[in-house]
């Protein structure tokens, strides 16, 4: 099982759109996926029309395995389940550690309901302090959308710095250009510069800025479902393939 976190320390960069489409693409590829909506401002659950779970309080959530498995909701798509938002995730790293431990009660409970996952995808809140750095530690990969602007360039550098300071392997970071606009020369220049500077820490795939992605809120479905032949969908497909090759190996 692999844990992939989708994270950005800057809002409005297409992080949730990435989580939603990546989760969908992974499930379509035959992997059993649990998408955890950890971002209270995010809306990955909203895009799958899953209502937030109100009954769960954090304390009981982690004490009670049955409650956890009950909180998971099946999406409309095969192999893809959602853990809806509306909880505080202070001890989320404890949860992840339990998911890793095949003998934990949590893992056994999931296996019992045929709910063992190949991938846990985390749609993380945009603030490192809210989400413990331990989540980074627990993850196999951290996918970071970067808008090719000077400001985003700086935040990506800050993130790398944070990793170094906290003794986290920088190799886990997989940045990619999001909302990229080919016509803007600034975008082009920034992308060239960042690729030179960060090398392998940036994926080759880039997600273009398109209205199809923006309309996801209207369709309430991954763009790969509502506009499967759009350039955005093709780009998410390529991003998925590249990431799978990196995380799962060829």
């Amino acid at each position, binding site marked *: 099982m692999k844990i992939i976190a989708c994270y950005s320390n800057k809002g409005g960069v297409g992080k949730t759109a990435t989580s939603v489409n990546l989760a969908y693409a992974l499930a379509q590829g035959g992997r*059993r996926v649990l998408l955890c909506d950890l971002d209270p401002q995010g809306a990955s659950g909203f895009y799958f*029309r899953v209502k937030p779970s109100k009954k769960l309080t954090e304390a009981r959530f982690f004490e009670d395995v049955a409650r956890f498995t009950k909180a998971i909701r099946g999406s409309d798509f095969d192999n893809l389940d959602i853990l809806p938002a509306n909880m505080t995730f202070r001890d989320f790293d404890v949860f992840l550690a339990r998911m890793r431990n095949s003998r934990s009660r949590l893992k056994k409970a999931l296996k019992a309901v*045929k709910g063992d996952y190949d991938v846990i995808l985390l749609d993380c809140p945009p603030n490192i302090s809210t989400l413990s750095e331990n989540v980074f530690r627990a993850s196999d990969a951290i996918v970071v959308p970067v808008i090719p602007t000077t400001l985003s360039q700086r935040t990506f550098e800050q993130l790398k710095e944070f990793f170094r300071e906290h003794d986290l392997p920088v190799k886990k970071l997989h940045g990619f250009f999001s909302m990229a606009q080919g016509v803007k020369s600034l975008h082009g220049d920034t992308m060239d510069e960042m690729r030179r500077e960060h090398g392998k820490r940036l994926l080759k795939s880039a997600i273009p800025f398109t209205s199809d992605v923006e309309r996801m809120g209207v369709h309430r479905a991954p763009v790969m479902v509502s506009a499967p032949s759009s350039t955005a969908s093709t780009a998410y497909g390529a991003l998925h393939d590249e990431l799978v090759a990196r995380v799962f190996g060829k």
Partner: protein
Amino acid sequence: MTPEDLPLYLLPEAGPEGLTDAVSGGMVAALSWQEGAAPFLVRDTFDQELRTSGRMLIATEGRSELLQPGGAPLCQAGGTAARFVADFPEGPVKAALSDLSPLRCLLPVGAGALRRGTLALLDDEQKTQARAVLLELDATDGGRATVLQLQGLRGYDKALARLRRMIEAAGGSALDDDALYSQLFPGLDAYSPKPVVPLDRYTEAFDAASDIIAAYLPVARANEAGVIADDDTEFLHDYRIALRKIRSVLSLFKDVYEPELTAELKTRFSALMVPTGRLRDLDVYLLERDAFYGMVPDSLHAGLDRMFALFAEERKEAQKALSGHLRSAGYRKEITALIKLFDKRKKLAQGKRADLPAYDFACKLIWKRYRKICAIAEGIDAGTPDHEVHELRIHCKKLRYLMEFFTPLFPAGPFKRLIKPLKKLQDNLGLFNDYSVQQESLQEFLGRLEGGTPGNLQVAQSVGALVLVLHERQLAERARVVDSFAAFNSDETRQTFRDLFHGGKE
């Protein structure tokens, strides 16, 4: 997540259309069909192993799908043209078919067009909370049936229960009986190679005998087409068993018919058997091919290759001859005449024990046969000549037939307890006989081989080695007979025989 395995439902003939009207708990049911229909073919073995086990094998669009009670349908690529289960590519369907007889081929049951659909229960945000996958089968010369599989989504148990209630309220029934076949292929006859003939204690012996014969004649007839088409070797096997059962009724049910009639019928049924013998022998050789190769060292395999090539060639001829015979006017006339004879029964002259009640008759016959077996078996030791062992085998076989014919007249439990050890004894005696018959016929085959033909010396060497091994095996089986009989004829067995067939007396 992967939908939980839930039972399949068969919808009433109206299909799922009415279900969408039912709105419940703020949810809407939405029905959608995929574009277009695909041709499908349903196949089964001739003795309907799939049908009788509640399963349906569907070939469509290059895939094999297996509907089964109490679980999700299985699906795998390929296998649509596989004649035998062994010919399927590896996959979940092949694995699930492993209980079918490896000797039986899959034959078309019916064809038609299918389409797939989905019935979804949506909430106020258009989120699917429960779903059912639909398979609508429209048979070309038959009826229409819609099979539905519930698929739960994790965390929406209530919606699933609601959808289930909706489907059950609309007349959906769990797919666990013959309803799908009878709805889809209403003209499909049930077939069993072992028809159950209803008897009671007071059925007259004449009627019992005639009923059994009348039940087995159609079994023989039903297998003719498969023998002619050479679909698989079981057709001929079952054809012969049916005729053999009839012949055993004629010889075992003494004095039910007039002696002259009995003799005449025996001759006529024997005549039906004669043309089938050689083909069956060759079938057995070819089916046992691997076992024969295992009996001799590799160096002698070349001779076996040649021998089996000769057998295969001869089989081709024998099959052609038999299928010609079965299609001949003479054969058809004879078999229809026999069917008519046992159907009308006016021309069946009754013998002196014709009106004996079946129960008394059965007790007498079974007890007598059992006593005979004991008498022979008690005299058997290491020095007893083979022909006496053969005789024991034949009496055991007759006892078994008698017991099978009269099964409905006796309590099931004790009866089963007798059949089981009897079967074991028969297995032993059967192998003893097979090894002996095979030696004889291989030697006969050797006698027919032309010495001058190149390669035949090799064949002769291999056959010689085979005969040697068969002889050894026969001796080993022979050595087991005394023990097998002792195991069969325990104190308990003896008491049960006395209780059931001789009023508890010695």
